[in-house]
């Protein structure tokens, strides 16, 4: 018996019962559509996190004062002052796997120019900050090592600050603005970066030599943090170990003492976020998968009814020479056609839903090829599994009894 003929027979049988066929398909359509949309949402949020991480530099390492806060223990103010400029110097001279490194200190306050003022921060960094954060200067210059050494009263502004302080669009370069009481000469404007995928304005930023922030604004002798980039993205772990060793020596910690600083890598952060998002994806997909399962049971249900209803037809087919196997194959093909057609429609519908989510809700959504292929395979398998019992039932009918069935 050739499969082409059985396919023809199965198609004809389905065609004879279009409405029922469609309703049966509906379960699969909804199930697959939901799976595709859920996976797309999950994948989309993962992709956006990834994009954001690489935006920020995936080899970035951040060092904070105080012990690891993940335990939730309150930190005393002493703990927050454990990072000193000397630690930074030590890292610069001793670490071999660090590409760039900058101290960070920041002060909040009002930026003022003429009648305009804008509340923001002064971000104290050194000259390597741009490389670490993958930023660049669009107009004018960045400050120099000499500026850092001299705690020069200069600043480089982000686009948002420029727009707010110079609303008339005049050239900010060379103008003297004030941060609180400190007058600072604008020497450059940062290249515009827009909002990141988390919705933060990356241009609401003003960079000042860190020494200026420490001495002239905050009057502190400690650092709020250190940011560095590893030479090799693959070996961030190694860099972290190296930094830990240097800082422990620097802080004269003995074996068994807890670190009084915390190191976070961008990768670690990425993994944390993406594992949460993976869990969400699995959860959403599981819920959607259950509806697919229900769709499969729907197929089985209808196929069983159909076998009972078509008992006479089955008897006839057997009496004119169909083998049990032919009957089985016919019903399996019917089930698979229903589930696969439903699956294809479901995939299209899921993709459409994803597109609507992107267009109207502006969520990051990605329909991945693997989710499409997976859904397709799952549908075929569901058709076979849930079609098997009714098909086997049909093929085991006794032709004489079947043909007499009323």
């Amino acid at each position, binding site marked *: *018996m*050739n499969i082409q*003929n059985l396919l*023809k*027979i199965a198609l*004809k049988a389905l065609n*004879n019962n279009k409405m029922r066929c469609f309703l049966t398909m509906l379960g699969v359509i909804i199930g697959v559509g939901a799976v595709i949309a859920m996976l797309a949402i999950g994948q989309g949020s993962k992709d956006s996190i990834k994009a954001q991480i690489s935006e920020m530099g995936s080899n970035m390492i951040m060092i904070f004062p105080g012990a690891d806060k993940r335990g939730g223990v309150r930190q005393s103010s002493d703990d927050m002052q454990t990072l000193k400029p000397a630690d930074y110097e030590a890292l610069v001279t001793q670490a071999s796997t660090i590409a760039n490194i900058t101290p960070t200190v920041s002060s909040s306050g009002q930026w003022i120019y003429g009648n305009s003022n804008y509340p923001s921060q002064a971000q104290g960094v050194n000259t390597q900050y741009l490389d670490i954060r993958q930023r660049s200067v669009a107009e004018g210059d960045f400050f120099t090592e000499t500026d850092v050494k001299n705690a020069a009263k200069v600043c480089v502004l982000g686009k948002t600050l420029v727009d707010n302080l110079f609303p008339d669009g005049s050239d900010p370069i060379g103008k003297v603005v004030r941060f609180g009481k400190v007058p600072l000469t604008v020497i450059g404007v940062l290249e515009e970066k827009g909002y990141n995928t988390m919705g933060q304005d990356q241009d609401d930023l003003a960079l000042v030599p860190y020494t200026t922030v420490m001495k002239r604004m905050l009057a502190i002798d400690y650092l709020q943090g250190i940011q560095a980039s590893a030479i090799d993205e693959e070996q961030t772990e190694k860099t972290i170990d190296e930094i830990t060793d240097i800082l422990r020596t620097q802080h004269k910690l003995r074996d068994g003492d807890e670190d009084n600083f915390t190191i976070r890598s961008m990768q670690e952060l990425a993994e944390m976020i993406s594992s949460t998002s993976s869990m969400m994806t699995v959860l959403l997909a599981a819920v959607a998968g259950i509806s697919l399962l229900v769709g499969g049971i729907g197929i089985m249900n209808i196929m069983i009814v159909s076998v009972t209803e078509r008992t*006479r*037809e089955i*008897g*006839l*087919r*057997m*009496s*004119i*020479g*169909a*083998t*049990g*196997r*032919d009957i089985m194959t016919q019903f399996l093909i019917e089930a698979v056609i229903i589930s696969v057609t439903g699956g294809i429609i479901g995939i299209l519908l899921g993709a459409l839903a994803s597109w609507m989510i992107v267009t109207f809700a502006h969520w990051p959504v990605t329909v991945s090829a693997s989710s499409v292929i997976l859904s397709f395979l799952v549908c075929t398998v569901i058709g076979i599994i849930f079609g098997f019992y009714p098909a086997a039932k049909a093929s085991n009918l006794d*032709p*004489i009894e079947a*043909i007499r069935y009323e």
Partner: protein
Amino acid sequence: MAKEKEIIKIVDLKRYFKVGDETVKALRGVSFTIYEGEFVTIMGTSGSGKSTLLNTLGCLDTPTSGQYLLDGISVQDMGKNERARIRNRKIGFIFQNYNLLPKTTALENVELPLLYNSGVSAKERAERAEKCLRAVGLGDRLYHKSNQMSGGQQQRVAIARALVNNPVIILADEATGNLDTRTSFSILTLFQKLYNEGKTIIFVTHNPELALYSSRNIMLRDGHIVSDEYNYDIKSAEEVYRNLPQEE
């Protein structure tokens, strides 16, 4: 009567059914030989074992004991799949209630047995089905759906379906049982035409009158053959048909 080729030979065929603790003896040892070109009617009251016998001859059922040779092949010990193949290649079955596929054209219904024979191409299938429909007088209704046809027309389609695989034997179980007298005789006329063309036919009926129209009549009672007689003066069904009053 040319008695050269044995189409069916059964020897002491028995078929018992177990129903609970009891055994129903539907066939209690039936023997006969049917030769190529015979038109045999099998008669008997309801419950005499006619259908059971025909199902066995049609390889739908297996005998409890006894021998059965179909076209020289011993079939009593065949497995399910082999029997399906024999049904497909050597037997044409006609049922009392036609058993056509609903919502399906006459042509497609007739093609059906050939769909289960991968040796027949789609083109040959359509050609043979059309030829058979013409042979039963439905050349102008190839594309009519089965449920749009009268009982007589449906039975003609069923006969065409039984002919399409060039069977060695045509088996009909109460083929006119659902039809009025006039239509019955038109169907009977068709069977006689097939007989005259040399086809071998077994026609099961409980109507004793029909014995006059076949070449041989076997009478069953309680699973035994009570008579097996040749009829050398076959009445023409067509004549009867023509003389019957035309109904509205």
